[in-house]
């Protein structure tokens, strides 16, 4: 179990899910579909903002479970000058503050469009920055070629986009279902977001495959990742289901709550599998000397 680093898996996936959802909400408000009137924004998005805030906070706290001495967690910022993990701790502390303010704006000042848009834009940028800092933690380790690559950054961004855009698109589709608004369309930008997430994740999977042509530890990582059953679920739940959701929502703009929940669980579990592979691809080879 330790090779999967589960606390880190859930920390990164949940926080990236939260950030991706904020980006998707920002995109939704940018395209401003007709049905997204004041009442919809007020009623739907304000509760969604609270859920996203909770996901981000829970995800951040889960990272503490990885520590052998959690009571000393406050000392994790002492290496700010050189350690990307210290910077990650600060980045996610700040991100939680930004997401809190964003959630307050969404909940309390939802009718002020420009304020909501601005807050969402700032929260999206802060989220992307935090994700990139997270990726740097692993990129920094030059001794592990699977992590020491820009694909690490790509993988984290792909997870955020896929989960975020699938979540908000399905939420919109459930809203249409309940309103029986069959004529309303899911904005193309939302579906593009899903497909972009799928495409980036496909690039990550192809890069793992390319690792088989490498040598040394990269081959070991590629074999560990591609030989795992988790890869099958990543492909089915992330790539195939993600593409399927985008295609389905392009043709049919509404979906029942039960179906949406099931689809969300499939995509989320695939993201979790993908992150487990990310850690086990390196940690399964420990001790490397």
């Amino acid at each position, binding site marked *: 179990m330790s090779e999967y680093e589960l606390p880190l898996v859930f920390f990164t996936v949940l926080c990236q899910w939260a950030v991706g959802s904020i980006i998707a909400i920002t995109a939704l408000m940018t395209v401003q579909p007709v049905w997204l009137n004041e009442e919809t924004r007020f009623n739907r998005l304000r509760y969604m903002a609270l859920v996203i805030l909770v996901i981000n906070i829970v995800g951040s706290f889960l990272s503490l479970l990885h520590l*052998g*001495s959690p009571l000393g967690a406050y000392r994790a910022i002492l290496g700010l000058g050189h350690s990307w993990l*210290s910077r990650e701790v600060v980045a996610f502390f700040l991100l939680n503050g930004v997401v809190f303010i964003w959630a307050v704006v969404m909940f309390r000042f939802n009718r002020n469009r420009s304020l909501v848009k601005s807050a969402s834009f700032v929260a999206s940028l802060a989220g992307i920055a935090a994700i990139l800092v997270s990726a740097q933690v692993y990129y920094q*380790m030059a*001794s592990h070629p699977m992590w020491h690559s820009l694909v690490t950054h790509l993988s984290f961004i792909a997870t955020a986009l896929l989960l975020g855009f699938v979540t908000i698109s399905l939420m919109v589709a459930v809203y249409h279902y309940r309103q029986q608004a069959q004529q309303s369309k899911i904005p193309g930008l939302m579906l593009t977001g899903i497909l972009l997430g799928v495409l980036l994740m496909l690039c990550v999977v192809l890069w793992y495959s390319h690792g088989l042509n490498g040598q040394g530890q990269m081959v070991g990582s590629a074999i560990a990742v591609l030989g795992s059953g988790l890869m099958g679920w990543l492909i089915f739940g992330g790539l195939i289901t993600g593409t399927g959701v985008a295609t389905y929502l392009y043709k049919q703009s509404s979906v029942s709550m039960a179906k949406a929940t099931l689809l969300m669980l499939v995509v989320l579990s695939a993201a979790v599998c993908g992150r487990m592979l990310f850690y086990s691809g390196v940690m399964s080879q420990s*001790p490397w*000397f």
Partner: protein
Amino acid sequence: MVRQYGFLVDMRGCYGCKTCSMACKSENATPTGVLWRRVREFNFDDPNGMAFISMSCNHCDDPQCMKVCPADTYSKRPDGIVVQDHEKCIGCRMCIMACPYNAPVFDPVEGKTSKCNLCAERLDEGLKPRCVESCPAGVLQFGDIDELRKRYSADLSRIETRYKLPDHRISHPNIVIIPAGDKE
């Protein structure tokens, strides 16, 4: 004045008795499962043979553990020994992930990592590191790395290919390895 301490491992005479590993464990009273020095075995079939490398922390010029540690527990002494302030460790295991030589070891009971400090306290008293002192075959030596490199110019790149060791350019370890196949 020593600029940088380092180890020399002469694989030609090592027969894998692991006395160095046990002496280190005994000297530092490390917990169950925590070995600061380990002996790795290599088996070859063309021609048939086996070889051993005894390795602990290589007190690198660019210590990856120090670079990634968020709690600032690692520091490099003026004599190049990388030491850990064990009290400050939070058990994040970043040093374990980052070290190419697997030097830091996690103790799940204590929830912290620890690693070889080249018996810094013994050196300060003018004694040799315990592993060096205990080696019955004289395989392990230590001293100023520049001196060791002058005496034995074993090419690390060649040895890394042969024994599938990490690339020394990542952390610039202070170790000289004389491979098993080389002539006396």
